[in-house]
């Protein structure tokens, strides 16, 4: 990597690779942005491990920050170099998931929910309860993401438990088991969801808040996000700088740019995005913007539960459970 290249590792189509943003950043700083992508967190970790020194910025779900730090994959960030860092909401900036021994290993970027989304054509008025998914009327028209952790955490919410401290696994399993016959398919990408809604194949399912917003505002699909009264899973995405990054200065500049309100507003309006961790950025949105009105609603804030890091053992246990459920339904 050349000194003034900034190598960024992120999901594809997730802000950092927007051509207009990249162009603006390059124009402002003279650095050149090179994007690389991953398809799963595990893969992201593998890519960092097997390419030491290649990446300058990497986007890591806060729940995985721990693991990356333990593996000595990322380095502390000098937040003083990031003027916009001051505007990050305090609870997020100070999240124990990102700050270890007082050092900042991740700069919060955006957060969002895995909640429910509905096909508006199938509902006269939006449901309020997660129980809607179990309603026989929707048999065969329910979707859920093919992700063991999320599915189990979702089961926890449905059974009224803390997603980060599930006490009654059996209840979760029973609840999910009874959900399986309702299900049409397991989605894995935004595209899946949108296609299915577009062809009116589904009524309801779990979905990401930012994606639901994008589907509605950008693609004009009949999609509405529902944050059920039982709660929803929330996640926080943050930027980190890998150990051995060759262009730390560039990385800092890039991260700062990414949490800048100007970028954020443009991102939301042009493309659709999750909620920024920068309070100023959210405030810069129009009054009735989804990310401000719904996501900023304190009622909603009370109901959501942020994902905390989980151990490998837990993860494997969840996967085993999830696979068993999928096999049993065959």
């Amino acid at each position: 990597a050349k000194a003034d290249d900034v190598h960024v590792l992120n999901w594809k189509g997730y802000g950092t690779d927007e051509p207009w943003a990249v162009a603006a950043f390059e124009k402002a700083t003279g650095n050149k942005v090179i994007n690389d992508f991953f398809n799963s967190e595990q893969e992201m970790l593998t890519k960092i491990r097997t390419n030491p020194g290649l990446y300058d910025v990497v986007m890591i779900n806060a729940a995985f920050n721990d693991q990356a730090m333990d593996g000595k994959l990322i380095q502390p960030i000098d937040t003083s170099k990031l003027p916009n860092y001051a505007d990050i909401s305090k609870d997020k900036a100070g999240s124990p998931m990102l700050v270890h021994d007082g050092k900042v290993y991740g700069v919060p970027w955006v957060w969002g929910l895995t909640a429910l989304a509905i096909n508006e054509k199938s509902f006269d008025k939006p449901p309020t309860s997660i129980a809607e998914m179990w309603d026989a009327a929707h048999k065969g028209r329910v979707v859920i993401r093919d992700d063991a952790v999320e599915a189990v955490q979702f089961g926890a919410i449905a059974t009224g438990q803390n997603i980060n401290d599930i006490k009654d696994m059996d209840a979760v399993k029973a609840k999910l088991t009874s959900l399986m016959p309702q299900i049409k398919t397991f989605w894995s990408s935004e595209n899946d969801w949108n296609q299915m809604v577009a062809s009116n194949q589904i009524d309801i399912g779990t979905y990401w808040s930012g994606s639901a917003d994008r589907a509605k505002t950008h693609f004009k699909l009949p999609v509405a996000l529902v944050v059920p009264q039982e709660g929803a899973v929330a996640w926080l995405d943050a930027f980190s700088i890998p150990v051995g990054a060759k262009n730390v200065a560039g990385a800092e500049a890039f991260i700062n740019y990414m949490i800048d309100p100007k970028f954020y507003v443009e991102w939301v309006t042009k493309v659709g995005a999750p909620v920024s961790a920068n309070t100023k950025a959210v405030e810069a949105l129009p009054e009735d913007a989804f990310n401000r009105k719904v996501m900023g609603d304190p009622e909603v804030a009370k109901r959501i539960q942020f994902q905390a890091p989980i151990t490998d053992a837990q993860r494997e246990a969840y996967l085993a459970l999830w696979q068993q459920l999928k096999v049993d339904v065959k």
Partner: protein
Amino acid sequence: MATTRILEWVGRLYIWLLLAFLYLPIIIMALMSFNVSPFYQLPFEWTTEWYASLWQNDQLIAATWNSVEIAIITTIICTVLGSAASLALYRYEFRGKKFLQALLFPPIAIPWLITGTAMLIFFFGVGIGRGLHAILLGHVALALPYVIVVVSARLQTFAPELEEAARSLGANQWQVTRRVTLPWIMPGVIAGGLFAFAVSFDQFVVSYFLATPGQTTLPVEIYAAIRKGFTPEINAVSTIIIVVSMALMLLTARFFKFGGEK
């Protein structure tokens, strides 16, 4: 005579039905590249917007070129190495031949995901690293077994006395191979080459692991794109590829005869 004719027509009809089955998704893909909705939504609304935006999408175009180049090089290397290996397996008897033949199956049987991961680690470990060269290395290895299996199947039908006849006329091993054996197995080599191209061109996993940022291949672009929303630009580029290759192939078929007479 009459039944022969009828059977011939039934046969032709059947081939057309098969082609219809094979091309059904391709036609839909092409149609959707002209549809406004990126989610295959009906009713159909005509647009060429996706072609226009494809034209702007340097990254996708660059990735497509990378794919084409890698697939072509892979095809060439695979057909050469694969045909040579098949010939050796056909011509000579030696101990361990069965074992070598069995070794062709792990690359096919082990899901590409595992192979790709293994390559990533191994290439990282021995310093081959990532990049187009690594992708090529991987693609050739994945496609080779297909070529060998296909060419070997064709070789089974070869009459060995033709090689003898050629040698009795003073042809050395290489001349025999080039002038007598190769023409006979050519349909097999071509089929193997087509498979190799397909394996490489549609190879996502290995490319994905071995690609470096900025230098990717078309499947990698496509798979990464679906997270956000799969744009019909991809349909557009796929349509262009199919149309161009179809034109090339029909042209080839017009000028070369390889399935040909006995």
